[in-house]
């Protein structure tokens, strides 16, 4: 069912990411692109959970936000080097994800959605109310990132960093999906009974995919905090979580590169629509409805035909 050779897709994306800067006339565009790249990373991880393993999470915005906050607090309040702070955030979030995955992934469907929704809102409330640590609703400023003595200061530095990280994430996920582990995740999506009957410990693998997914969100959330130099509970809001889920569905559930397309569209769309002011939400909603009606398999399915045709031409 692979319509496009995976590594070709990766190369294609790399080329596109390399070309984009030539069309960037100012920092504002860079900023949108970088936000889209970080969102894409989170969405790739969320898609692994939703599209491949078939488990929904309405808390990924909150996970990314919490990860970002941990990194930010460790750097700004405790003076840890950024890389160490991110590593601590990663370990903490991985353990946190593992612990909460055990009870909540016993649920499925709407119940799982409700449970993750609750967790997301709780995280948001905690970030909002722990004013001494997090600065409360006003957010907090984050010191700049220093990686082995290099400080990404220009917009294109960040663009490069985010692009490389996204490509790396995609490459790792391509490998994972195309492996026994990936097969197990997809089988859980299709039939937990079938997976169990051939010896798959379903609950164990659900936890693993949840941890991977939250870990990716933590990396993206942390780096985003350093990039913007500021973090507020807004990053961990329910709206952000929903936005991420919509990106997965819009791009294409269970399609790795759909995540990138979904993130790009949904990050850029509100910016493009600012000139319509009061009609913004209306147009935004209409576009999403139209896409979902005419491309129920996600925007990425547009590319299926192209891949097929070029392959037919070769043979």
């Amino acid at each position: 069912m692979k319509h496009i050779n995976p590594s070709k897709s990766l190369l294609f994306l790399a080329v596109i990411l390399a070309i984009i800067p030539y069309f960037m006339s100012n920092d504002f565009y860079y900023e949108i692109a970088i936000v889209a790249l970080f969102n894409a990373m989170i969405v790739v991880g969320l898609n692994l959970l939703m599209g491949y393993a078939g488990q929904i999470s309405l808390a990924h915005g909150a996970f990314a936000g919490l990860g970002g906050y941990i990194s930010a607090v460790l750097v700004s309040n405790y003076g840890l080097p950024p890389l160490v702070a991110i590593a601590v955030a990663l370990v903490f979030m991985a353990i946190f994800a593992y612990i909460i995955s055990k009870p909540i992934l016993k649920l499925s469907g709407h119940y799982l959605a409700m449970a993750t929704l609750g967790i997301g809102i709780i995280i948001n409330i905690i970030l909002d109310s722990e004013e001494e640590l997090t600065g409360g609703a006003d957010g907090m400023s984050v010191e700049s990132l220093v990686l082995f003595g290099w400080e990404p200061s220009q917009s294109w530095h960040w663009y490069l960093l985010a692009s490389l990280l996204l490509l790396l994430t995609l490459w790792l996920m391509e490998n994972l999906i195309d492996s026994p582990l990936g097969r197990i995740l997809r089988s859980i999506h299709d039939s937990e009974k079938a997976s169990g009957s051939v010896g798959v410990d379903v609950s164990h693998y659900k936890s693993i995919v949840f941890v991977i997914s939250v870990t990716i969100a933590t990396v993206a959330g942390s780096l985003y905090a350093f990039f913007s130099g500021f973090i507020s509970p807004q990053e961990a809001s329910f709206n952000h979580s929903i936005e991420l889920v919509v990106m997965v569905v819009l791009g294409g559930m269970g399609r790795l590169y759909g995540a990138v397309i979904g993130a790009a569209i949904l990050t850029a769309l509100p910016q493009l629509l600012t000139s319509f002011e009061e009609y913004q939400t209306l147009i935004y909603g209409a576009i999403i409805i139209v896409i979902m009606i005419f491309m129920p398999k996600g925007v990425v399915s547009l590319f299926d035909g192209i891949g097929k045709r070029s392959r037919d031409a070769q043979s």
Partner: protein
Amino acid sequence: MLKAENLTKRFGGVTAVDDFSFRVKKGTIHAIIGPNGAGKTTLVNMLTGVYRCDEGTVWLDGADVTNTATDQLVYRGVCRTFQHLEVCGNMTALENILLGFDRYMSKNLIQVCFRSKRIREDEARYTQRAMHLLSLIGIEQHAHTLAKNLSYGILKKLEIIRALATSPSLILLDEPVAGLNPKETAEVADLIRTVTKDEVTVILIEHDMRMVMELSDHITVMNFGKRLAEGTPQEIKANPEVIRAYLGSGSFE
């Protein structure tokens, strides 16, 4: 091989399986038959840890495996299929079989993410073996077809060979020919006979009497959750109680 003692399962006021005991000899095909609602599927679900037994013990080669989860039983050489198809529809036929082999493959996260040599070797080796299994049911040409696009008859067989991929020593088949036409039924019977060849013990739950009588070495008859009779196909055919409760006259024409 397998010994079940005094198994009991109650659903509210209904006792689906009532103080049921039986033993399965190694290398035999042991059929469990009975009217609808006799508790056959409940029994399989109890043996494979899907339902908790209210009472009773399941022994496997002398070890107590009562209430052991289905996925854990696979590592003890017990595998099952389902009355209602449980095939992964959005995966290809080949992937469904490879799923059965996954217990032998490395799933180490680092190796998986970097697609190590071990992963590639495993994949190549087990793909070959999976293709061999597919050739047993004659659908190599459909290896890369999504399972949801294959016919019901093929999927029933696919489920059996997926179970075989886990190399079980005991396999529980819950109505493997339900809904199949006579030709497909004969194919499944052949499949069961060839692949098990005295090496794999089979517990067969089935309604198709012709197949049960042809295939099985030993038959246990269930009725209302209790054991009604036990014996060889000849003995069962001649048992007046069985005929009254279940078979009726003229079942074997």
